[in-house]
C-alpha cells in the first residue's frame, strides 16, 4: 500500500472469495443489491461503498459480496441501473474473472409492469416480460413502455 493510500485508509477490505461489483453508477448500489435479491435478511457478508471518488466516473459505488459468484443472468440485470459496472470474480484474494455487463434483449421477471390492467399483474402463472429498446422497456404483454425510473419498477 502506498503512503497516499495509507493516509486515506481503506474504505472496504479485500475479500477472499466472492464478487466485487465496481464502477456502479453513483447512488445505485442499494438498487443493485435489490436486483440481486440481497436484503437485510439474506446471509451474504456485504461491503458497500457509495459516492467513492473515481477518475473515470467522478463518483461511483462499489459492492463486495463474499462467498457468492454472480451468474451471468444476475450480472446482466445490473446493467439496467449501472451500464458501466464491472464485475470481478475473486478466488483466494485474486481476480480470476473480470467482465462488463450487457443489457439483455429480454427481461423476464425483473421489472413489474406499471400498467394495472396488464395480465402480468394478476394471479396468472406468468412472469413479466419486457424487451429492451433504445427508448425504454416494452412490455410484451400489454405494450406498455417504461421510459424512465426503471429502478422503481424492479421486482
Amino acid at each position, binding site marked *: 500500500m502506498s503512503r497516499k493510500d495509507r493516509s486515506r485508509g481503506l474504505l472496504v477490505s479485500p475479500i477472499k472469495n466472492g464478487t466485487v461489483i465496481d464502477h456502479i453508477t453513483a447512488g445505485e448500489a442499494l438498487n443493485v443489491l435489490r436486483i440481486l435479491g440481497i436484503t437485510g435478511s439474506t446471509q451474504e457478508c456485504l461491503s458497500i461503498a457509495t459516492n467513492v471518488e473515481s477518475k473515470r466516473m467522478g463518483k461511483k459505488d462499489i459492492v463486495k459480496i463474499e462467498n457468492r459468484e454472480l451468474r451471468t443472468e444476475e450480472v446482466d440485470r445490473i446493467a439496467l441501473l449501472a451500464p458501466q459496472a464491472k464485475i470481478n470474480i475473486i478466488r483466494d484474494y485474486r481476480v480470476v474473472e473480470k467482465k462488463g455487463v450487457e443489457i439483455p434483449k429480454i427481461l423476464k421477471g425483473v421489472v413489474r409492469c406499471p400498467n394495472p390492467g*396488464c395480465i402480468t399483474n394478476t394471479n396468472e402463472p406468468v412472469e413479466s416480460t419486457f424487451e429492451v429498446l433504445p427508448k425504454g422497456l416494452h412490455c410484451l404483454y400489454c405494450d406498455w413502455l417504461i421510459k424512465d425510473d426503471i429502478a422503481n419498477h424492479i421486482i
Partner: protein
Amino acid sequence: MYHIISIRDFGRRDLDYLLDRAREFDAGECRSATLDDKLVALLFFEPSTRTRMSFATAMARLGGRSIGVDSVEASSIVKGETLADTIRVVSGYVDAIVLRHPKEGAARLASEFASVPVINAGDGAGQHPSQTLLDLYTIRQSMPIDGIDVGLLGDLRYGRTAHSLALALSLYGVTLHTIAPGGLEMPANIALELRERGMEVVEHSDVQEAIRELDVLYVTRIQRERFPDSASYYNVASSYRIAPDLLAGVKDHLMILHPLPRAGEIDPAVDRTPYARYFEQARNGVPIRMALLHEVMK
C-alpha cells in the same frame, strides 16, 4: 401454430394477404374452403355483440360449429381458476379459441398456454386485430389504402381500435390526422412510434379544421366514464359530434367509419348520406373473421 394476437405482429404482406382472402370469402370464391369438421371456442369474458356474433356467424358460414362462455359469471373464473388453466382445458375440447378478456395481454398469455390457435377478440384497452382488419378491408373496398388521408376522431387515449388502426395504416404511407378532446389525445409513445415508422401525424383540435382534407374519417366513442362529471362529458361530446352540416365541402368519396356502438358521436341524419359506411363496416366483420378462422384452422 398460427395465433392472431396483435396487429404489431403483422407486416404489410400479411395484412394484404388476409384482406385478399376476406375478399375471396366475401365474393363466394372459396366455397371449397370449409371448416365443417372444426369446432371453435368463443371465450368472451367481457360484453360483446358484434364481435361475438360475427365470429359465430363466420364459423357457421364456413360450416363449422362454435361453443363458448359469455361472461365471467358463467365460467370457472369465478371459482378462482386462472385464465391459463381455462385455456389449457378448453384447448383439449376445440380446434381454435377466440378470446375476449378485460386484461391487456390476455391473448398473448393464452397463446402461450394453448395447444390450439388463439385469436384475440379484444384484450382490455389493448389489441383488437380483427377489428383493424375489417377497418382496412372496408377502406380498401372503396379506395387503395396507400397514401390516403385518414382522420381519427374521439378518444385516442384509451381507444384500442384507434391505436391498432393507426399502427396498421403506418404500413400504407397514410397521413394520419388526429382530432381528440383535451386529455384524450393519442399517447405520446404511440404518436412517436407512428412517426418512427415513417408516418406523418398531424394533430388537430377541431374536426372542421381537418375534415375537407380527409379520405376517411374514423370516429370512436368518447366514454362517459373518462370525465369527472356529466356536464364536462356533454360539453366535449357535443363539440365532437358529426352532423350533416359539418360535411359541407368534404371530398365526394369521404368515408365515415365507426367501430360501433356509437353513443351520439354521429347524428343519425348522417346515416342517410353517402359518406356513412359504418354499417357496411360492421357487416365486413364476417368475411374478415372467416378469413382469420380459416387461416388458423386450415
